[in-house]
């Protein structure tokens, strides 16, 4: 009875990915360092990947794993461009928080 209850089902994985997504959201909303905000976006992407793989197994469909592959490629490109932008912005600046980017403030 207890052994049957302790087998992780798809809902466990999906709830774990929801919690991971929530932690990532909290980090993006709260942290000030743009690099750490980027890491929190990676957390959210990984939560989505985890739920894709879980649903691929649950639905018995390989397309779920295929789209995770594409999400990884796009995430790699996004990190490259994002870090390039951060380097270009932050090169001549001593402060590192996102609040200091107020040149367009009227």
């Amino acid at each position: 009875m207890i052994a049957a209850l302790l087998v992780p089902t798809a809902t466990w994985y999906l709830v774990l990915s929801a919690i991971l997504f929530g932690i990532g959201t909290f980090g993006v909303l709260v942290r000030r360092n743009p690099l750490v905000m980027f890491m929190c976006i990676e957390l959210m992407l990984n939560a989505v990947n985890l739920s894709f793989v879980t649903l691929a197994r649950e639905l018995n469909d390989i397309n779920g794993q295929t789209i995770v592959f594409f999400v990884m490629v796009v995430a790699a490109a996004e990190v490259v461009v994002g870090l390039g932008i951060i380097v270009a912005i932050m090169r001549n600046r001593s402060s590192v928080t996102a609040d200091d980017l107020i040149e367009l403030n009227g």
Partner: protein
Amino acid sequence: MEFFVFGCAALMILVGAVGVITRSHPVHAALSLVLTLFGVAVLFVAQEAHFLAAVQVIVYAGAIVVLFLFVIMLLGVDRVENLRTEPLTAQRPLAIIVSLGLIGILVAAFTTGSGALHERGEGINIPDLSTGTDANTTQLAESIFSDYVVAFEVTSVLLVVAVVGTVLLSRRIKSVAAETSK
């Protein structure tokens, strides 16, 4: 056994994720991110996505985190951020409400909608002695290079655009700088 694997991986994921958002030092946050990414890779293996687990470790835990650490060192921003002060009033309580509400909505959707999941695919090959040890990789490759070959080619264009754009972004334009300084 599966419960034990799930518990350990979930613990790794959650400890790493909390570390990313609570460590004030960006290098520590990046190393916590590695812990989370390894935990996700373990769960990929537990769900028979072996190729994706390998890619997760190589691309995410390898390349992307190294890129993060490289940029942290390049910018010299490996400084401790003061997390005690709260620049915007009531931002953190509101953020807690938003993220908890998001988790609640997602969990409610998963628990109520799990009955709507029907097996609709043609099956995932699980590597064993009869199908060969690379069944997952073979099946994923057949899916990518037959059904999604156009998307795969477009992805290569995306990567070229990303690389060229990053080179342009991070290049110092010497001639313009010299003219403006005259």
